[in-house]
């Protein structure tokens, strides 16, 4: 039997996210610009704003006591950030032109890279290297470290970073965005108020920037409310990443394709791995897979564990020790999934949440930062002329005329052909790269990942048992991510809890943090429908469930992982 998770939509109404301010006027927290998300986009925006405001004393005064506030749901900025990453330097150069590269929170400049096609036994170097993988001149970076760096810089410049704060509602009045509402803290499992219950607050601002990252809680509700959906639905890939201390330094940036992904079109397994050096004594390794796969037993975490057993990879990790683990989704819809407009009255959207990621070249960090900076410029230019204006449409223009849109347009159809399998997909993608997107041109329509029908296949049988030296199970990994969320917190995961086995199994295998489980007594009872048990406190907020038929909403501020160098 084949079932699509999209047939079991989550008990969640995005309209609930949009509310009017409710706090009495004198209890609302007033800030000049409210930025939701302490990631590259949000923090680049915050830093740029302060830089611009240095020359605008009048406007600064109008923005009040707190000109710029960044609302971040993690314990600190960087706690929830995870990516490869080979960052293009253009954004950092623009934001901090006087900062020497030796002070950048990066590991090294890429001087050597290679792409390998893996079979189960061999690693065949692909030469010439597919051009989209060429990273010379880019910098191996941990976005988690980048987040901390940008947050420190922002605080030095006078930005208020409100960490451990979830922005759970978008405040809208008369179709104008007024700010956000922070989440309650101190609720119990059933939503009841505990002894130390602290209600959230309305944070009102002249401009609100949504920079929420890959699964934008407010952003996607806003897409519905303001009718911003792009031509194609949002799509995602899931990446699971580990950091290893290794005795043998890695001298090149490596990408792999092929094994363990299966090539046949029916599996729809698109993805590959990345292995990047992190200085002399560490490296990171991750596996990224599109969430449109069709085998319900496919697990990115376990496929990564399997990948590590490949002789070529094992050799790179020889004598090493795993020191970090994490998981996060990447928006993969590209150009056609970007929203119709990036600004509505009172609000601007920047970064991953607006699908500004170029999956074929694996770039998103610098686009996010550039977008954040464009947002900052637009806000200052607009409010300078009229401090009460809510029209930030100039932001759309800036992005439209920028490399963000140009690059994404070029690769707009590159992801789609892989639904035809690895070889045909590869052929199409190459053709597109060479012709800069002009062949075959047009718009290759994409589908919602959750609409793919899932079948109970055999991927699960190939995964290794954890040996705790090279391979590890999910629970040990969640522990390593620093996740210590309290057990009596309300469940923030929205799914239907009685579904066909294929759907349940999809979630069980998909989730890298073992949030979903089928009760022991229903595992082998042959029933077509099963219950799904949710252990929300394991969740590392990767966002995969939103891609595959459920919905991730926000847990209490401060919950979730504490990534340090992912």
């Amino acid at each position, binding site marked *: 039997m084949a079932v699509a998770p999209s047939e079991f939509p989550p008990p969640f109404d995005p309209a609930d996210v949009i509310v009017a301010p409710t706090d009495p006027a004198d209890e609302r927290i007033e800030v000049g610009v409210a930025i939701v998300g302490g990631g590259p986009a949000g923090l680049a925006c915050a830093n740029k704003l302060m830089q611009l405001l240095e020359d605008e004393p009048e406007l600064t005064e109008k923005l009040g006591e707190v000109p710029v506030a960044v609302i971040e749901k993690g314990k600190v900025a960087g706690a929830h950030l995870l990516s490869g990453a080979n960052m293009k330097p253009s954004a950092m150069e623009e934001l901090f032109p006087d900062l020497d590269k030796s002070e950048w929170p990066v590991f090294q400049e890429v001087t050597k890279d290679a792409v390998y096609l893996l079979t189960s036994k061999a690693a065949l170097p692909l030469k010439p290297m597919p051009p989209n993988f060429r990273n010379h001149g880019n910098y191996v970076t941990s976005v988690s470290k980048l987040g901390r760096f940008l947050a420190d810089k922002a605080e030095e410049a006078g930005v208020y970073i409100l960490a451990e704060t979830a922005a759970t509602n978008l405040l809208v009045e008369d179709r104008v965005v007024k700010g956000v509402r922070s989440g309650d803290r101190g609720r119990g499992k059933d939503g009841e108020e505990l002894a130390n219950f602290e209600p959230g607050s309305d944070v009102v601002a002249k401009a609100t920037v949504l920079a929420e990252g890959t699964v934008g809680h407010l952003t996607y509700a806003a897409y519905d409310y303001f009718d911003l959906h792009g031509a194609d639905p949002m799509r995602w890939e899931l990446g699971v990443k580990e950091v290893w201390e290794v005795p043998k330094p890695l001298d090149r940036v490596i990408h792999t394709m092929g094994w363990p992904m299966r090539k046949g079109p029916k599996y729809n397994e698109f993805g590959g791995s990345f292995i990047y050096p992190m200085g002399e004594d560490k490296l990171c390794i991750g596996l990224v897979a599109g969430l449109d796969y069709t085998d319900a037993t496919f697990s990115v975490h376990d496929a990564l564990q399997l990948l590590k057993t490949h002789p070529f990879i094992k050799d790179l990790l020889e004598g090493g020790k795993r020191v970090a683990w994490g998981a996060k989704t990447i928006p993969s819809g590209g150009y056609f999934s970007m929203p119709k407009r990036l600004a509505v009255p009172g609000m601007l959207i920047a970064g991953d949440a607006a699908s500004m990621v170029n999956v074929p070249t694996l770039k998103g960090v610098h686009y996010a930062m550039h977008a954040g900076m464009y947002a900052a410029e637009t806000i200052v230019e607009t409010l300078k002329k009229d401090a009460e204006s809510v029209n930030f449409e100039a932001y759309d223009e800036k992005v439209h005329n920028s490399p963000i849109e140009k690059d994404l347009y070029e690769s707009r159809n590159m992801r789609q052909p892989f639904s035809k399998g690895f070889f045909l997909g590869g052929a199409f993608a190459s053709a597109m790269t060479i012709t800069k997107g002009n062949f075959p041109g047009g718009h290759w329509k994409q589908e919602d990942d959750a609409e793919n029908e899932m079948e109970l296949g055999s991927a699960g049988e190939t995964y290794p*048992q954890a040996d*705790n030296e090279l391979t590890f*199970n999910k*629970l*040990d990994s*969640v*522990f390593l991510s620093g996740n*210590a*969320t*309290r*057990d*009596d917190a309300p469940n923030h995961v929205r799914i239907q809890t009685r579904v066909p086995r294929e759907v349940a199994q999809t979630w069980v295998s998909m989730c890298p943090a073992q949030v979903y489980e089928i009760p*022991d007594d229903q595992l082998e009872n042959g029933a077509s429908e099963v219950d799904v048990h949710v*252990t929300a*406190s394991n969740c590392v907020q990767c966002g995969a469930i939103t891609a595959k038929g459920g919905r991730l909403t926000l847990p209490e501020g401060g919950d979730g992982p504490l990534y340090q160098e992912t």
Partner: protein
Amino acid sequence: MAGILVYALHDDEGNFNKNSLGAISEAAKLAGEIGGEAAALVVGDVADDACAALGNYGAAKVYRAKSVPEGLAQPIVDAMAKVIQDNGISYALFGGGLLGFEIGAGLTARLGAGVTMEVTEVKVQDGKLVAERPILQDSQIADVGYVGEPGIIIGRLNAFDANETGGSAAVEDVEVELSPWSTKATMVQRGEQRGADVNIEDADILVGGGRGLGAAEGFKLAEELAESMGGAVAATRAVVDAGWYPYAAQIGQTGKTVAPKLYLAAGISGAIQHKVGMQNSENILAINKDPNAPIFEFSDLGVVGDLHKIVPKLTEAIKAKKGG
């Protein structure tokens, strides 16, 4: 010079605490190596023969401060500081327990002395004592030496074993002038037992129940087993989550941390979130039907089998052994 002074805690009936007895034995052993004698300090009006009996554990001498009340730390700091200074004693040693911590800490300030706590072993190096203590959640052992004298060593619970060697100690009474602040705290009620809620952190024996118990009713098996051994029942996060057992019994990363003499894990997989809460138990016995359960990697005795068959029989067997 040299010599080791041990604080001998006792209850209101004059029964000495076993950790204190262990510390006396330890002191006797060490004094034998570095020279000097092992002495004990007793506060309160404890009978001559009870004091002298501490010699059975190795104390050569017992200093008794009759007028100093037992149960609060600061008056005892006054007593020990005096005895240490009057007699040029080199080390103060405490068996595990709250009062030992408080007294040792007060002495640190009073005498400007180095202190090490949670000590699991003491060794002799170049005629001096070096204390070994676990650090960073027991991931490493630090060897700590002392600068100057005296040095204060506070043992971890159950670190030192009491050894009866036969012998009797000389009892010497000492007069202690209490510091003004030592009289500012008064004991209103000492040692109140609070019946039903057994504090699992203090239990010597714990039976931990996990998902393998099958249902909330499965905890009856755990309770009966615990009772047969005079222990208490603990639980994993998963079963507390499912409502099978109260949160007060939860052990692990987001629950309590315990280190009993025996942790019997029934139907527990041993995921790291649970492991970090009980991995320092002296003895770990695991029963689980899954031979690949992680718990078997760190248990001292692992039994692969159906706990529903094993546990009831085990309970019977233990009752029989104890009864017979």
